[in-house]
């Protein structure tokens, strides 16, 4: 984004403060353009006027150019499952935030047995890991052509398409690619990859079928030249693959290429390479070693480039020990550091509690709250859960910092009228808040029980501690 202050954006807006965009003033709308929560198109009068008036249309286009992200955004797939990559504006997440999380694609190939293919596709579709109130999932499937036979490739690609996930089509042979595109181009797959030897055919395919295309070259001069050629020919949706080498000097070089590409695009304002970057941790499977060593190294490569600028990746391992860390890291790196991670304080009823049900208390830090809430929900525990406003801090931090106090617990219990909902006076506090036990008892007159350190162990704890004797 070329502009930094709302004032610069304001100049381009109708300045009528009509409120149609949902903000009271044009200035407030402008501020939200700057933080990228809205786009110029979200101002209806501006769009309407642009349709009628060529001058305003030009203004709108100028504004769009000024406020579009530094790195192009590319969409792969269609409908609800489509995934957006790129669109980044900063080199370090604290400068604003990273926007579109690295998309994870998993490798299948066209000479795989039907059973294995099905199993792998199903795993990609079904993977879910609960984290901070939602499920982390995987984005898509990369279908590799190993048969070198257009018909075989086409029929396997069709099969994979039926799972409804975005696809990367991996085939260097243009005939195979064409065969696949003839039947799935409308699913908007990313075609991989145009190289120095096949780029003419791939350029034709990208234009003819209007699909995003990955360009692959280890030499960055070549990569840039190809990107310029494609751009000038009218291809907008480009992904750059500077080639991932898994070990030694090769890996060092990969690291350098990826960092240089992103830095030069954003800080050096080189628009010719301002495209999403692809990294292929799957190249770890070229190294020597057993399955676990390879999968570990693949996870290492994935993690390294989640932190450093990859927008899309192809993996092989679907082992939980590979997928769980990478999806978690991706979520953490792409969390918006500008928004506090809190939930509303108050009282939650979990699994239809009755007056006999236990009462728990936790904090309003999203990570804490959702962990506890989901532990209770999925263990089938009927209970009341008090959520204390600790200003978005976890249990130990807020106990240490004074946001989790007996006085505040008492207030919360009064506000939520919890005493009227149950027929007992037992409150269960987190193990990490044990030192507040006495103070809360004095303050509230309830009996305070110290629960386990980890909410994942509440179920076992209840077996010996509830109902209280």
């Amino acid at each position, binding site marked *: 984004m070329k502009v930094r202050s709302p004032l610069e954006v304001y100049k381009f807006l109708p300045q009528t403060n009509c409120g149609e965009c949902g903000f009271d003033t044009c200035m407030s709308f402008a501020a939200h353009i700057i933080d990228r929560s809205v786009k110029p198109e979200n101002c209806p009068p501006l769009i309407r006027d642009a349709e009628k008036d060529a001058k305003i249309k030009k203004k709108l286009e100028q504004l769009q150019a000024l406020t579009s992200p530094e790195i192009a955004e590319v969409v792969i797939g269609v409908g609800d499952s489509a995934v957006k990559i790129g669109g980044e504006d900063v080199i*370090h*997440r*604290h400068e604003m935030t990273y926007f579109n999380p690295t998309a994870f694609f998993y490798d299948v190939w066209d000479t795989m047995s039907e059973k294995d293919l099905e199993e792998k596709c199903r795993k990609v579709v*079904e*993977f*879910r*890991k*609960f984290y901070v109130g939602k*499920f982390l999932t995987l984005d898509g499937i990369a279908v590799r052509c190993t048969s070198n036979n257009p018909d075989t490739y086409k029929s396997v690609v069709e099969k994979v398409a039926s799972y409804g996930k975005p696809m990367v089509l991996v085939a260097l042979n243009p005939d195979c690619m064409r065969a696949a595109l003839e039947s799935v181009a409308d699913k908007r797959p990313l075609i991989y990859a145009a190289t120095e030897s096949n780029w003419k055919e791939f350029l034709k395919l990208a234009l003819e079928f209007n699909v995003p295309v990955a360009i692959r070259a280890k030499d*960055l*001069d070549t*990569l*840039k*030249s190809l990107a*310029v050629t494609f751009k000038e020919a009218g291809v907008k949706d480009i992904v750059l693959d500077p080639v991932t080498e898994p*070990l*030694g000097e090769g*890996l*060092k070089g990969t*690291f*350098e290429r990826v*960092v*240089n590409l992103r*830095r*030069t695009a954003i*800080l*050096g304002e*080189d628009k*010719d*390479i301002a495209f999403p970057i692809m990294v292929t941790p799957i190249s770890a499977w070229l190294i020597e070693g057993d399955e*676990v060593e390879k999968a*570990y*190294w693949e*996870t*290492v490569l994935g*993690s*390294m480039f989640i*932190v*450093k600028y990859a927008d899309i990746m192809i993996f092989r391992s679907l*082992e*939980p*020990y*590979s997928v*769980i*860390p*990478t999806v*978690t*890291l991706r979520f*953490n*790196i792409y*969390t918006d*550091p500008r928004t506090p991670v809190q939930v509303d304080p108050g009282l939650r009823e979990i699994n239809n509690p009755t007056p006999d049900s236990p009462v728990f208390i936790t904090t309003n830090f999203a*990570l804490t709250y959702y962990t506890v809430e*989901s*532990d209770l929900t*999925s*263990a089938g525990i009927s209970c009341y859960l008090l959520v204390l406003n600790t200003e978005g801090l976890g249990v130990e931090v807020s106990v240490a910092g004074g946001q989790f106090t007996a006085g505040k617990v008492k207030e919360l219990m009064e506000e939520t009228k919890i005493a009227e909902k149950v027929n007992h006076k037992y409150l269960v506090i987190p193990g990490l808040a044990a030192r507040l036990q006495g103070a809360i008892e004095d303050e509230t007159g309830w009996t305070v029980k110290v629960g386990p350190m980890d*909410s*994942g162990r509440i*179920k076992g704890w209840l077996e010996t501690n509830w109902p209280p004797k």
Partner: protein
Amino acid sequence: AKFEPYKVEYPGKINEVVLGATKKDGGTRDKVVVLGGEKSLPFYLFDADQPNLPAIAIDIFDRKPMLAKAVREHYEDVLEDPADWARKAVKEYGADLITLHLISTDPLLEDTPASEAVKVLEDVLQAVKCPIIVGGSGNKEKDPEVLEKAAEVAEGERIMLASATLDMDWERIANAAKNHGHVVLSWTQMDINSQKTLNRYLLKRAGVSPNDIVMDPTTAALGYGIDYAFTNMERIRISGLKGDSDLAFPISSGTTNAWGAREAWMKDSPIEEDSDWGPRELRGPIWEIVTGLTLSLAGVDLFMMMHPGAVAVLKEVMYTLGG
């Protein structure tokens, strides 16, 4: 078209800190570890050389601590004897340094007197010849006394005292380091401003030399605040490189924290809808690896770790990128 990489140059440089002392400097270590010296972001060798690669210390304790099963099984035979434990960590698991945590000094545990606790330090100094880091129990009242005694008995060895914090008598730790030629670990809770404040106190008020400070801005595990830890460290490192001399110190990370994450140690997911979590023996080490690897990209110079497999993989990564 020619690709012209955009160059980044920083005016500052991270201070070099030497841990350990060999015979010629009055110690008995057979090698030293040098931290810091960066002029660029980690492993950006295309911007500037990185003279010292990050080092890995393995944690050992003076009493049996709580350990995840996947970690404990590698140390089962040495848990009772810190000297053997240190030997195993160095010889078999390739530790560059040893971090000895004197947790038995905790008044809520055995409350071992400082003068007795540091005997274990003497044993460890005998047992291994790498540089040593010594930690207390985390008790704010007792730690200064424990670390003072440790500084005394390790005179000449240039150990690192872990740690000085804002909410304790940091001046005593600083003086102990100064008087006996050791290094101080300046530890704050994930806040760049507190880190700056404490470092400045150590430099200006206590008069510690800039080459005798390492800082620990706090490590949170993957999935449990690593986003805070990463960004806090990255900001600290960039400030140091930009020339803020209050923040131009090598960074240390308590990477063993990764084992606190439930994904690292729990058998199965407590959430029914979750996909299978697979064997925890494989999940745990990679959790420590990814935690360390991520923070290595923020600028960590010294990792305190435990799982031997995690140590080996992280080392390989850093030697590849930095080698």
